């Protein structure tokens, strides 16, 4: 096998590219500007999707960590998956803060505000940055794997606690405007916006899986190289 990408990765990457290009076209040209927010509403085609994928990524990390710690399903591959998902999650969480800031400046008048969701995302980003640091700093592999798995799980367990505390503290971020309990989504927004949103979620989900498979493959190759070096006795 030549190169890092497998066929599956290439297909994923191609689909992600197509859907994201579709998101750009729909988001920038096809959809109408908002009544209140004007052109700024176009952020909705990237920001919520990116934020959701960050959460998905950290969820995958926690799940894979759990499967690694459970003796019956213990496998190095779960550890690898947890690690690469956290890496991608950190990228998405950072992008969430960046895109949110860019939108917050003209809308709220500030780059950053101590709102509950912003605080929660920032803390999550810090927790998983620490997680990645811990992974890279422990040399003994099995120790690194179990320490990281424990951290991956408590980091996730901590989310509801942080969630509660920051929400009681203060909330400014708008509540979900598309998914509301008493109305179907297509009554809340223009149908073309809903299509663009759905495509953006699909696009970023594909992008997540694409990056995940790429990093996962890279991790596998690293281990192969390490094993081969050990064989040769270097």
């Amino acid at each position, binding site marked *: 096998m030549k190169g890092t990408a497998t066929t599956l990765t290439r297909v994923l990457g191609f689909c992600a590219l197509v859907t994201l290009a579709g998101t750009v076209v729909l988001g920038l040209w096809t959809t109408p500007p908002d009544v209140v927010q004007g052109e700024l509403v176009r952020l909705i085609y990237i920001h919520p999707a990116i934020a959701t994928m960050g959460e998905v990524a950290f969820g995958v990390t926690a799940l894979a960590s759990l499967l690694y*710690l459970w003796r019956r399903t213990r496998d190095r591959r779960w550890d690898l998956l947890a690690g690469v998902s956290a890496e991608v999650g950190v990228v998405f969480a950072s992008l969430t803060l960046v895109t949110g800031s860019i939108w917050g400046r003209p809308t709220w008048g500030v780059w950053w505000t101590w709102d509950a969701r912003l605080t929660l995302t920032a*803390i999550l980003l*810090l*927790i998983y*940055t*620490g997680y990645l*640091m*811990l992974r890279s*700093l*422990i040399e*003994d592999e*099995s*120790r690194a794997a*179990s*320490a990281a798995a*424990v*951290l991956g799980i*408590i*980091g996730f*367990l*901590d989310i509801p*606690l*942080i969630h*509660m*505390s*920051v929400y*009681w*503290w203060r909330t400014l971020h708008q509540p979900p405007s598309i998914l509301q309990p008493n109305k179907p989504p297509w009554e809340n927004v223009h149908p073309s916006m809903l299509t663009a949103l759905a495509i953006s979620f699909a696009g970023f989900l594909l992008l997540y899986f694409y990056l995940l498979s790429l990093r996962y493959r890279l991790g596998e190759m690293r281990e192969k190289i390490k094993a081969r070096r050990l064989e040769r006795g270097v």
Partner: protein
Amino acid sequence: MLRDALLVAGKDLRIERRSRVTTNQVAPFAVVVLVLFAFALDPDRGLLTRAAAGLFWVAVLFCAILAVQRSFSVESADGARDGLRLSGLDPAGIFLGKAGAVALQLVALEALLAAGVVLLYGTDLRGGVVLLATCAAATIGLAASGTVYGVLSAGLRVRETLLPLLLLPVAAPVLLSATRAWEVALGTGGAGDGAGPWLRLLVIFAVVYVAFGVVAFGALLEEA
């Protein structure tokens, strides 16, 4: 388990009594932090009094990191960690003992810091029951979570920077809730729902981390 916990806590506290790291190094550091806050915030009495609750808990958080670091550095010398692993003590007991020793030292530091806040920031310590309940719940939570993260980073070359990076974000709910609860008690915060929900959150945090530590400490110590 409890007997083992008392044994380990007794050992840690005995080491502390003889080495006096907390009394001679951490306690002065805590006072310096209080003085530095005053420099940073302008010694305007009103501002310092209003911010006293938050500053107090930030100082406690810093002290907690030092106490946890000390708690695991005493195990790194002379292969003491191997001794602990081989001692046949219940790992849950070891966890409770180490966390208990850290908690006791934190309580002493909190008393000192509270005195400092009264003297330096002109705070009136009102609402004693809420203040004490907050201290109890927050201290247990900090000691338990600190001990879990302490053993994770024990023995690593970069533990001095890694432990704060791991612990501080996770302890954010403690800082937030303890500060709000104190503000309610001291009457320096805005109008809120009272200290009840914050205290509950502190108790939940403490319970989650104590339970997690009791269950997982054995595995973590094996690997450390």
